[in-house]
């Protein structure tokens, strides 16, 4: 999958200044010889900032430590998809409203499109791929298959990850509570009724500790 790295009116073109900054020279110079900071305590110095060029990072994705180099502007979503080839999370709205990019960060559902990859260092990241680890399908994904709870399927990885997060947080959650936990996910095919069947079964099962 080769998503566009850039969209919007700025376009991919770099100005001379951006090119110089990107080469690392200007950034390193300003960081080292910047003016002394008149902060509340005299000994406070501005720490060296990373970027705007690529920064080497290690992320823990689905239990594996993965290493790459990304510019600070690269979101966790783009780092996963375009740098680490973890494509379960989908790029749809890219502005924190649709839920297709949902991943679990230390067990909490988040939008990977509104987090920088650099922020995710040191955290445990789980994507939809984790729901089929070792070839065994997680109960949430299996219920979606059983009840045909998808049409085009593009939103599905976000839904199943958010649902897994909700059930992990509260294994005894009611169907209504699960629906509320999925408020941040949108299915434009409108397969909500089938999802409700899957949720009803999952709430029964998880409640019994299966």
């Amino acid at each position, binding site marked *: 999958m080769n998503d566009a790295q850039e969209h919007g009116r700025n376009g991919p073109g770099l100005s001379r200044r951006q090119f110089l900054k990107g080469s690392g020279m200007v950034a390193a110079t300003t960081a080292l010889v910047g003016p002394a900071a008149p902060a509340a305590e005299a000994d*406070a110095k501005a720490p060296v900032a990373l970027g*705007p060029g690529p920064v080497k990072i290690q992320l823990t994705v689905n239990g594996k430590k993965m290493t790459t180099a990304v510019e600070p502007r690269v979101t966790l979503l783009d780092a996963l998809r375009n740098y680490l080839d973890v494509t379960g999370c989908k790029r749809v709205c890219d502005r924190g409203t649709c839920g297709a990019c949902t991943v679990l*960060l230390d067990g909490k*559902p988040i939008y990977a499109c509104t987090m920088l990859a650099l922020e995710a260092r040191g955290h445990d990241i789980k994507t939809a791929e984790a729901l089929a680890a070792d070839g065994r399908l997680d109960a949430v994904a299996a219920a979606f298959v059983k009840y045909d709870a998808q049409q085009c399927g593009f939103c599905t990885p976000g839904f199943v990850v958010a649902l897994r*997060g909700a059930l992990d947080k509260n294994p005894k959650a009611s169907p209504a509570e699960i629906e509320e936990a999925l408020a941040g996910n949108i299915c434009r095919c409108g397969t909500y009724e089938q999802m409700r069947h899957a949720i009803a079964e999952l709430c029964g099962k998880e409640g019994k500790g299966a």
Partner: protein
Amino acid sequence: MEPFDYAAPKTLNEAIALLVERGDRARVLAGGTDIIVQVREGRRHADLLVDIKRIPEVNILHYDPREGLRLGAAVPCYRIYEDADIARLYPGLIDAVSLIGGIQIQSRASVGGNLCNASPAADTVPALIVHEARCVVMGPAGQRLVPVEEFCVAPGRTVLGRGELLVELRLPPPRPHFGAHYLRFIPRNEMDIAVVGVGAAVALDERRERCVQARIGLAAVAPTPLLVPEAAAALMDGPLTESHFDRAAALAQAAARPISDLRGDAAFRRHLVGVLTKRALRTALQRARET
């Protein structure tokens, strides 16, 4: 997205030094749910994002019966509503942090970030207003306290000067027999921006009949969230009745200066201010009687 630098300072002084050095080309990053989208869409510009989440002070969430609540600027919504004591003591705040976005937003977005984004429609700000929050601001000249209703100065703009950042919000301990509520109107059930938002708080006397203190805060009806003291003052005379709520609602409507935009026209917004003010007051009163 335009290229930028990233720094994750571990102390407030380091963060302030970075903000002083880069001026208004530096932006603070807490939950990222606004700033990352804004930079990507060219609505705000940044040469540097200062990720404050490794600074201990901005992660404080602590209640003390004498001092009240200390709410660090980067504490995400879910930590607030998952704390049973805070949920009981600051019900208006809990209403707001529970209805912002969906679960994915609540996992990341902070109340401090919602305030610093300075949207006129910010859901947490009327709640902070009715809970009498004060903002702890740190900068190169030291620390200052700003009442939350004075923090936003225009859409997207705050009182923060060069090198300053919001460190925490301080909410005083709730008064005896206190209740508060925040609610908003949106055409959907979830994931929307308030057409109008209203917060209300009342504190009752020993017999729980007369109002001894009240606050009413409005969102999305002026360039900044509004505190409406004259509407609260209308609740002070005699045991509380529906006619007090009618008067307060009319005064809140008079204080509103709404615009017409894609979410609703000015007349509709003014109508909503009346309806929501009464509903917010009724629930706040009910909660005050239950405490």
